């Protein structure tokens, strides 16, 4: 019962944080510098790892599907499979998991440290709402950067799959056939659905990580505990939300 009460309390707290943050939305234009800094930290610095991982995920997907689909004589559809899987599922989910581990943990650590070392209290006494200065630019940055990262992940995954399909002797599907299959069965909605999922995941991750960071209590040891809690909560939420958002998008 206590556990349930705590969960409901945290959900309420997170929603209140969102409401408090949205109240400061009109101040966003004059927080350009912070917004750009966050876009850089969330988006640009995540690019190398997103590129490498999505390339290899696309490659492995092509390898696995090439091996299986050969049995059905359906090798020509590898492009479709890799394309749809990356766009609808693996692209957004993988980017979200990377953002949770890389950016979410950093945000939680920074805000938790500010809380423990009374910087948040200092902001409050200076009548500078932490939601305005710390949460709003991060939420705005993730909204802009998440679709960009998801698109880059899709492209890298598709090209990884194409390379593997062409140069693996047992698959041997050339790039032209691969991309024609990819284009033939893929609708703009598939890509849009993936981007919507990425957007939802990114927004929830940043909101939850900010909430956990700002609500850290105790000493320096709690900073580590908050980071663990934020990453684990984000990963669980990504996978749970994935089911519900996918269902909503597929049958809407």
């Amino acid at each position: 019962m206590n556990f349930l009460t705590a969960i409901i309390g945290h959900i309420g707290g997170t929603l209140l944080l969102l409401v408090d943050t949205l109240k400061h939305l009109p101040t966003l234009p004059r927080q350009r510098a912070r917004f750009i800094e966050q876009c850089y930290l969330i988006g640009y610095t995540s690019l190398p790892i997103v590129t490498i991982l999505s390339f290899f995920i696309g490659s492995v997907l092509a390898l696995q599907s090439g091996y299986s689909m050969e049995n059905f004589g359906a090798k020509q559809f590898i492009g479709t499979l890799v394309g749809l899987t990356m766009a609808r599922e693996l692209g957004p989910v993988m980017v979200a998991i990377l953002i949770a581990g890389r950016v979410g943990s950093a945000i939680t650590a920074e805000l938790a440290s500010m809380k423990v070392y009374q910087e948040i209290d200092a902001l409050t006494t200076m009548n500078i709402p932490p939601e305005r200065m710390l949460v709003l630019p991060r939420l705005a940055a993730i909204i802009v950067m998440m679709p960009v990262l998801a698109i880059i992940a899709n492209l890298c995954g598709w090209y990884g799959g194409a390379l593997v399909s062409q140069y693996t002797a047992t698959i041997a599907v050339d790039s032209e056939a691969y991309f024609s299959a990819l284009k033939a069965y893929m609708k703009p909605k598939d890509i849009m659905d993936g981007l919507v999922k990425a957007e939802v995941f990114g927004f929830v991750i940043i909101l939850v990580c900010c909430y956990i960071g700002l609500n850290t209590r105790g000493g320096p040891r709690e900073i580590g505990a908050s980071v663990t809690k934020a990453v684990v909560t984000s990963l669980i939420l990504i996978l749970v939300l994935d089911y519900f958002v996918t269902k909503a998008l597929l049958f809407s």
Partner: protein
Amino acid sequence: MSSSFTASPFVGKTFGVTVAHLTKTFGRTTVLKDVSLEVRPGEIFCIMGPSGSGKTVILKHMAGLETATSGEVKIGEFDAADPETRNKVHLALVFQAGALFNSLSVYDNLALYPREHRLCNEAGIRDRVMHALSILSLEKAAHKFPSDLSGGMKKRVAIARALVMEPQLLLYDEPTSELDPVMSATLTEIIATLREQTAVTSVVVTHDRDLAFAIADRIAFVMDGRIRGVGTPAEFKSPADPVIANFLNPVIDLKNPRFQQLENSHE
């Protein structure tokens, strides 16, 4: 310290603080028990007491960082717990460890308040920041980061940051803790001179007997979450209460060590 000790005149009015029947509970622990006291406008009011007696919790209630379990804290006629009060009263709290923003330089730490509240343009902000830094002889530290500063410098930067806010109520949490005697004396002089120059009401939570006796107009002694006594430094120099006398003038007795009685010394 700079000889040109001319902090800009603060926004006219300074405020007194009234704490009425303040009780604060954290979980099952009652930290403050029916605390009442009054800080008069323009005075330096020191709150003294042993560690864990609830001094800083009183200060946090004044700063609006804690909400009372019962009772109330008023700054002038405004409720300290109401966030709106911070729009009406320029209140600054100098934290024990400084609470400087580690990701910002000293200059940007000071510039944050006028920038966020759009008080003036960058040239005006620069004047204001450099003026506050010059008051505390910190001009050369302007472009350093908090991690490059000594404990004493951090506290001076924290005071400078408070000055940029042109406070009408200035709260200090253990301003001289962890400092050497010379730096403690320097900070004591800073607090007194700022009050002298600006007439700002100053509430100082401290263990430092020398600081309190040197600059306080009145002192409150807190013990186990209760006010044990309020009086002038002269009255506290020879207190009738043996508990206060023991705190202010502890005698080191190696034959009957005090630490062996600590278990029973608190409620």
